[in-house]
C-alpha cells in the first residue's frame, strides 16, 4: 500500500515540478503577487482630491475650507472660479468632490440665519462618495457646534454651557482602520485557492486526455491510493505557498498576526481539503483540460466574489447568502482574518472549521465515487 502510494507521489511530484516554468508559477509568482496585490488592496478613503469653488470668499468660507483641509480627508488640489471647470474636473476624474460656497454664505451665518454648503460628488463610486459625504457632514457638524456656542454667547444674557455628546470611538483590532490589514490576509486565501484548484482540476483529466490513464489502470494501484497520490503533492505545494505568503504578509506588510500559527495551518489543511476536493471532482467530470479549466474558473470566480472578500455578505440577498454557506473560501476568510487580526482561537472559530471540514469531506467522497465510474 505505502509502496504504491510512494511511487504515485514521486511520479506526481516529478510531473508537477519538472517544468521550471511550472515551478516559477507555483512558488515565485504567488509571492510576487502578494507583494503587488498587498499594495493594491486598499479602500481607505483619505486625501480625497477636492476642488473649492468659493463664490463667497468670506472669513467663514475660508475657515470652512481650512477645516476640510485640516481634517486630513480632503486634499484641495484647485481653487476654481467658474461652473464649467466643475464639470470638466469631475468628468476627467481629476477631483472626486467640489465644495461650493455661494455668495453671501458668510453674511447669512453671521446674521444668524441658515446657510448651505454645497458639495458636488462624483457618484460613480458610490462607496467612496458615501464615505466622503459622511466626512463632510461631520466637519460641517463640528463647525455648527462652534457657531452655536458663539451665537448663544452673543445672544444670551450671560454665557452658559451647553451639554453635548462626544463620541469617543475605538476601533478594536485595527486602530487606524487601515484597510490593507483587512485585505492582505484575504489575498493569501485567494491565491492559494486559485493555485490548488487549478492544479487539481487538471490532475486526472490530463491523464485521460493524454492517454496515460490506461497505463495507470493497468497497475495494481487502488482508487484511494490514486486519489491520495494526486492530492498530497498539491497539499504540500499549498502549504509551502501559504507559509511563504504568510511570511510576506507578516514581515513585508507588517500585518499583525495575533493568533496561533498552528491553528492557521490546521485551518489551511481543512481549506485545502475542500479546494482539492472540488478540483478533483471537476477533473473527474471533465473530458478535456479546456473543460476542466473553464469549470474551475466557474467555481473559483464566484467563490472569490461571494466570499466576503470585498463585498460584505450581510448585504447580499437572502438566497445568495445561503449559497455562500457552500463556499469554502467564506469560512477560510473568517478564520484567517480572525487569526490574523483578532487573535481568536478554536472556541470562536470552530463553526467555520467544522463547515470547512464537512464541505471537504463531502466533496472528496463525491470525487472518489465519480472516479470509480471513469476508470470502469
Amino acid at each position, binding site marked *: 500500500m505505502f509502496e504504491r502510494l510512494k511511487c504515485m507521489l514521486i511520479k506526481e511530484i516529478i510531473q508537477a515540478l519538472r517544468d521550471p516554468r511550472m515551478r516559477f508559477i507555483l512558488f515565485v509568482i504567488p509571492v510576487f503577487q502578494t507583494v503587488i496585490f498587498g499594495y493594491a488592496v486598499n479602500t481607505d478613503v483619505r486625501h480625497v482630491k477636492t476642488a473649492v469653488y468659493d463664490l463667497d470668499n468670506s472669513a467663514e468660507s475660508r475657515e470652512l475650507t481650512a477645516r476640510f483641509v485640516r481634517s486630513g480627508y480632503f486634499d484641495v488640489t484647485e481653487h476654481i472660479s467658474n461652473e464649467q471647470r466643475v464639470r470638466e474636473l469631475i468628468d476627467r476624474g481629476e477631483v472626486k468632490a467640489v465644495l461650493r460656497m455661494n455668495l453671501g454664505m458668510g453674511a447669512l451665518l453671521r446674521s444668524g440665519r441658515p446657510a448651505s454648503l*454645497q458639495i458636488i460628488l462624483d457618484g460613480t463610486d458610490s462607496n467612496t462618495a458615501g464615505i466622503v459625504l459622511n466626512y463632510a457632514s461631520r466637519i460641517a457638524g463640528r463647525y455648527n*457646534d462652534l457657531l452655536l456656542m458663539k451665537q448663544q454667547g452673543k445672544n444670551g444674557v450671560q454665557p452658559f454651557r451647553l*451639554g*453635548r*455628546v462626544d463620541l469617543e470611538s475605538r476601533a478594536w483590532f485595527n486602530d487606524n482602520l487601515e484597510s490593507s490589514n*483587512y485585505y492582505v490576509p484575504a489575498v493569501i486565501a485567494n491565491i492559494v485557492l486559485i493555485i490548488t484548484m487549478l492544479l487539481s482540476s487538471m490532475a486526472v483529466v490530463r491523464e485521460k486526455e493524454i492517454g496515460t490513464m490506461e497505463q495507470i489502470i493497468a497497475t495494481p494501484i487502488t482508487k484511494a491510493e490514486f486519489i491520495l497520490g494526486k492530492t498530497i503533492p498539491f497539499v504540500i505545494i499549498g502549504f509551502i505557498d501559504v507559509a511563504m505568503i504568510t511570511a510576506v504578509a507578516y514581515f513585508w506588510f507588517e500585518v499583525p498576526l495575533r493568533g496561533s500559527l498552528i491553528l492557521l495551518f490546521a485551518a489551511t489543511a481543512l481549506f485545502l481539503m475542500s479546494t482539492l476536493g472540488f478540483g478533483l471532482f471537476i477533473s473527474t467530470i471533465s473530458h478535456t483540460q*479546456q473543460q476542466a479549466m473553464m469549470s474551475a474558473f466557474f467555481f473559483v470566480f464566484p467563490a472569490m466574489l461571494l466570499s466576503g472578500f*470585498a463585498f460584505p455578505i450581510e448585504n*447580499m440577498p437572502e438566497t445568495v447568502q445561503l449559497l455562500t454557506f457552500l463556499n469554502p473560501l467564506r469560512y477560510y476568510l473568517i478564520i484567517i482574518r480572525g487569526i490574523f487580526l483578532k487573535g481568536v482561537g478554536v472556541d470562536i472559530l470552530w463553526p467555520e472549521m467544522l463547515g470547512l471540514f464537512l464541505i471537504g469531506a463531502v466533496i472528496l467522497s463525491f470525487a472518489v465515487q465519480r472516479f470509480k465510474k471513469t476508470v470502469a
Partner: protein
Amino acid sequence: MKFQRIKAIAKKEFLHVFRDPRSLGLGIAIPMLLLFLFGYALTLDVDKVPLIVWDQSNTYASRDLVSRFSGSRYFLLKRYTDNYRDIERAIDRREALIALVIPADFDRRLVAGEKVPVQAILDGSDSNTATIALGYAENAALSYSRDVMLKQSRRQGVNTAFGLLDVRPRIWFNADMISRNYIFPGLIAVIMMVIAALLTSLTVAREWETGTMEQLISTPLKGPELIIGKLIPYFTIGIIDLVLAMLVGQFAFSVPLHGSLILLVGMSLIFLTGTLSLGILISVVTKNQRLASQLALVSTMLPAFLLSGFIFPIDNMPLVIRGVTHLIVARYFVTILRGIYLKDVGLDVLGGEALFLILFTIVVLALAIGKFRKKII
C-alpha cells in the same frame, strides 16, 4: 497572407468549437450566469450594521440617543448588554460590529452642560465597513448634540433662530448612489478579460500537445494566418458574450447607459481582440495546456479583479503599483465602460485610455504572431 487559408483555419476552429458543445456552452453560459449572480448579489452599500448597546444610564435622554441609532436604516439594534466581556465576545463572534457604551451619569452631565463622552467600540478588522459605520455614528451623535444644545439654549431664554450650516450634497452621475451602477460595468470588464484569455489560451497549446500541430505545419499555412484564423471563432463568441452582457445590464438590472453606444461597441471590440490575443500569446509561448491554463488564470483573474480599479481605487496605490496597473488591460476597459455608462463622456476624456487599449492590442497581437514558430524544436 491569403484570405482563403485564414478562412480554412477559421472554419476548422469553428467546427472544433461546435463539436465541443460543453466548452462552447461554458464560454457563453458562464459569463451570463456570473453577471446575473453578481449583478444581483454584489453591493457595497453598508446598512443595518449590527449594534449592541450598554446603556448604563437608562434614562429618557440615553434612550433617545439610542433611538437615533436604532431608528436609522444604517444600524440594527441587536440587543442590550451590561458588561465589556460580553461586548468583546459579541465582536469576536461578529455578532455586532459596533457597540455603544453610554455612561451612568449621561443625563446628569448633559443637563449640567458638560461634554459627555459616549464610547463607540468598532470591529476595526473590517475597516471599510467600520469607517462607514463610524461616519454614520458620528453624524447621529452630532445631530443629537445639536438638538440638545438647541433645546437647552431655548430653555435659557435665547429664542433667536440659529444660523446653521447645512450640507447640500449633489451627487453626479449616480444620484441615488446605487453601487450596482458602479459595479456592473466593471464586472463586464473583469469577466470578459478572464473569459477571453481562457477561451484562446489552450487553442495552440492543444495542437502542440495532441500532435496535430505537425499536420498544420506540413501545410502551406503561415503563422499570421493560423493566429488570425484561430482568433475568429472566439471573437464571435466574445461578441455574443458582450452583447448579452449589455442586454443583461440594460434590461435585468436597469444600469443606465448614458453615453454613446457606438463608442461602447468600438472599444469593446478592441478590448476583445486584445484579450483574445493575450490568450493566444500565452498558448503560443507555453505549448503546454497545463502551464497555459495556469498562466492565463494567474495573469488575468486576480490582476483584473484587484488592479483594474474595479473595487480598489487605483489612486490609493503607491506609485510603483500604479505603474504596474498600466500593464493590466482591464484597467482601461473598466475606466472606459464606467465613463461611457455613467458619465456620458467621449473620446475627449477617454482618449488616453483608448490609446493604451489600442496599443496593448497591437503589441500583444504582434507578439503572438511573432512568437509563433512553424518548427518542431
